[in-house]
Structure formats: C-alpha cells, structure tokens
C-alpha cells in the first residue's frame, strides 16, 4: 500500500485541467464513461466543456482500489443541461482520466 498523497485543492485541480487541455489536449476515458455517454447522449465535446468551464468540487474522494483521488467537476453541456464529470487527476503522469458522468 503506497502512502496517500495530498489531494489537489479546487484551484490547483482546475489549473492542472486547464494546463493539460491547453498543451497535450489529451484525455483518457474508461469503458464505463463511454457506456454512460451512449446512454445519456453526451459527447466528448460536452465533457471538455464541463472541464473547461465547470467548477471543481472542494472535497475529492480517495479511492482505495486504485490509490487515487477522484474529483467532481460540475457544469453544463452544450444543450445547457447540468452535467457532473468524475475524473482522476495524475499530475505526475500528466494525465486526466474521465471515470464517469452523471446529472447534477
């Protein structure tokens, strides 16, 4: 079991997301969120919109199974429907993984 790292604060998390989208512009998607996108009819553009313009919730959740903090970013999609995106942020790997998306 590795030592639990400190979570990013909302401002740090937001800054990391903006920085990664502006440079690598690359996001990983789990099979689960791909299923959710088909079921709920939201797209990668909607996810990117929420990540770019949404708000990072202040209390990330620690996931023991994969030893990561997961963050919730809330915003609206291109149809102005509320959408919350759950992401794992890994600054050490310069990586964002979208785990799931759901209604706010």
């Amino acid at each position: 079991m590795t030592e639990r790292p400190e979570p990013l604060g909302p401002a740090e998390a937001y800054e990391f997301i903006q920085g990664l989208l502006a440079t690598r512009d690359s996001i990983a998607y789990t099979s689960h969120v791909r299923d959710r996108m088909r079921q709920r009819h939201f797209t990668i553009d909607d996810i990117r919109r929420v990540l770019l313009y949404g708000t990072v919730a202040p209390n990330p959740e620690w996931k023991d199974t994969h030893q990561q903090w997961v963050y919730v970013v809330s915003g609206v999609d291109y149809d102005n429907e509320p959408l919350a995106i759950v992401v794992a942020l890994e600054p050490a790997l310069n990586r964002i993984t979208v785990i799931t998306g759901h209604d706010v």
Partner: protein
Amino acid sequence: MSDHAIRKCTECGTPQHVERRTTDYPESGLSNVQLINVPVWVCENGHEEFEIPAVTELHDLLASMIVRKPARLAGAEIKFLRRRVDLSAKTFADRIGVTPVQLSRVETGARHVTHRMDLLIRLAIAAFIAAKQGKPFPADMTPFITKLEAWDIGSHRLRHRDQPTPDREWEPEGVEA
C-alpha cells in the same frame, strides 16, 4: 514525464500497458467515424481506457471534412459543427436566422435541413475554423457562397411570382383617367 511511466487502472489499480486499436468513435456525436491507431490502455484484469490525443485538432479536421461533403448535412453533423463554434443552440439558431425549435428539429433528425440552412452552416463553420487557425477563408469553399447567392436570388423570384396579381395598376390619388 513520459506517458510510459507506470500507469495504473482507475478501476482496479493494476498496471496498464498500451495497445493500438481501430475503434468506432460515437463519443464524438457522429456515428460514422472510425479512428485508427488509437492508444488503448489495458490492465491485467482487462479494463480498458481509450485516449484521444489532440482532440481539438481532430474535431476541427472532422468539421473541415463535413463542411465540404457533397451530400446535404445530417442532423448529428450539424450538432457536431455547432459545438465547434462553442455556441448554445439558441445563439447558433439566432446567428443563422432560424428559431431554436427549427434548429432542434433539424439536429434531432425530425426535419431535414433546408438547402439554404445547409449552406449557411457550412460557410459559418468554415469561416470560424479559418479565423481560429489565423487563416483566410478557404478558397475551395467559395462555390458554396455562389450557391447561396444563387439560391437567395432564386427564392426571391419565386416569392415575387407567388404574390397575387394586383386588381389594377397603381394610380396616384386624385388623378382622373
């Protein structure tokens, strides 16, 4: 930091390795796009995470191809194009001179796009992408401007001819014939 540092599965925490695959891309909102050589991260338990590099560039490329396609635009394609200009349905509808309800019906496939709306959307998107990339309006899109002008002239004539014929010629008041 290299991408090939040890990555762990976000579902089970086991190490992942990368594979290159060909995959459908319905997550774009388009049902007829297939991506080749996409990195897919696979863990020991078979969980998969697919990654799309340079998404903005990819979607702009898809948009450039869609606005040049010979066939009329489909609803899903119009929705995809609207997202390229980062506009809500209401604002986009205002810009191209239709109501949000009309745009919604077209995007959902409940109605076919009109010839004029099809041309307007192509030109608006082409202009937006060119401006975003700091390039002039693409020369190969000018035939669509010609088509739009021809369509507008044609439709005006049609409306004019459809107007009822007046009962008599106009005469200024107080003038005896």
